[in-house]
């Protein structure tokens, strides 16, 4: 077949032809320059290719990627810290004793002025309350983000909050039950454990057992239950053992946990 026709058919298959070019193909078929039977067979075959199934990558794939990303970030941070530490060292090296004494006097004057004209305690408290609210809002928004890295960051922000309100707890429990990334869910358990005294958190953690599919998350939950001494989680784990075909090591882990909880 003419190479130009071969290119035309390839374009037809990829859906690259406009109306005019499609008419040209029809004309070539009508005149017999393109074999109609072969053309139809190729078209059908191209469609049928879409039906070949493909497995999904395992959850381990995401875990490995985010671990690698985290490692790289830490390395970058470490190299920045080193560079930042270099700056005061080099400045200090330039200072002579009289200059140091002058700097100390300036610091003392600054401290005295700050004490006289600085903010009152209530203003500072107000500011820190607003900061906390802002962090909480940021965390809840980031938990809805598309990237697992952002959601991980959000979970980490939650650990900086001194206390948690209902909205933050609700957002974290929602993440625990629905986030597609195992890594995010595991970190969420860690974050929620900090508020283990809160009844809503305790209930949420127990209710989450039945909703988890990943063995890593289930094992992490079992550890959390032991740490928080949540005895009412034992029946949930027993149900999991009865209803699901769990990995042998997970089964053993759950049996030990149940024995320790009861």
């Amino acid at each position, binding site marked *: 077949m003419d190479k130009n026709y071969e290119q035309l058919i390839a*374009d037809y298959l990829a859906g*690259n032809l406009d109306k005019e070019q499609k008419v040209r193909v029809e004309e070539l078929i009508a005149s017999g320059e393109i074999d109609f039977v072969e053309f139809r067979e190729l078209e059908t075959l191209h469609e049928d290719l879409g039906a070949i199934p493909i497995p999904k990558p395992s959850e381990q794939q995401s875990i490995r*990627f985010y671990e690698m990303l985290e490692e790289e970030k830490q390395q970058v941070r470490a190299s920045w810290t080193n560079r930042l530490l270099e700056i005061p060292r080099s400045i200090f090296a330039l200072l002579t004793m009289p200059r140091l004494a002058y700097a100390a006097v300036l610091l003392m004057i600054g401290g005295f002025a700050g004490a006289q004209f600085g903010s009152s305690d209530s203003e500072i408290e107000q500011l820190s309350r607003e900061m906390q609210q802002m962090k909480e809002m940021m965390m809840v928004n980031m938990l809805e983000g598309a990237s697992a890295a952002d959601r991980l960051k959000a979970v980490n922000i939650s650990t900086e909050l001194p206390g948690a309100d209902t909205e933050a707890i609700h957002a974290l429990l929602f993440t625990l039950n629905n986030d597609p990334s195992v890594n995010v869910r595991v970190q969420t358990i860690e974050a929620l454990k900090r508020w283990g005294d809160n009844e809503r958190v305790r209930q949420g953690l127990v209710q989450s057992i039945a909703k988890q599919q990943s063995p890593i998350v289930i094992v992490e939950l079992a550890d959390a239950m032991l740490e928080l001494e949540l005895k009412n989680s034992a029946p949930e784990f027993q149900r999991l053992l009865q209803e699901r075909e769990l990995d042998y090591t997970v089964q053993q882990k759950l049996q030990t946990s149940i024995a320790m909880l009861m």
Partner: protein
Amino acid sequence: MNSNSDKALMMKVKNGDLDKLGLLFERYHRPLFGYFYRMSKEQEVSEDLVQSVFERLLKYRQTYSGDGKFSTWLFSIARNAHIDHYRKEQRNGVTLEIDENRLEAEDNGQELLVRNKADKKEILEKALDLLEEEKREIIILSRYEGLKYKEIAELYDTTEGAVKVKMFRAMKELKNLVNQIDKDCSYG
């Protein structure tokens, strides 16, 4: 440039915002896995290769120029990772073993197909496996990964016209293989 476009995200990664690689991972790890799986038929190898692509993105992030489509750059890295992997295996003498296993599996597959008068899907999958690697790759990149012929031409360092001709001929050969397997099954 849209701030969430692939290019913009990769530029941010280049400038130190490494978290943005997470977004690119979420967008591309499944298509990349699909490409590697269709090429190798091995789940574990495919996952290793996806990881290797993102490791290379991080390692060589400073070399990203932002020219051309991001997906073309990504798939050129993926192709290199795939080629490197099989070269390494060749050096370790694994290829022969794999090929023998594969041939054996193919023979078993053939018997299975004959016994079960297998359906169209199975025949097509088998025919695709039997296709020469480059031809299979062109079909995978165009049909499954949605790369334009122009992008595939960049990957192969050839002309768009040459890729179109190769695609046509690969499809034609695939059709012949399907017909041949189908015929063998009917006789069985």
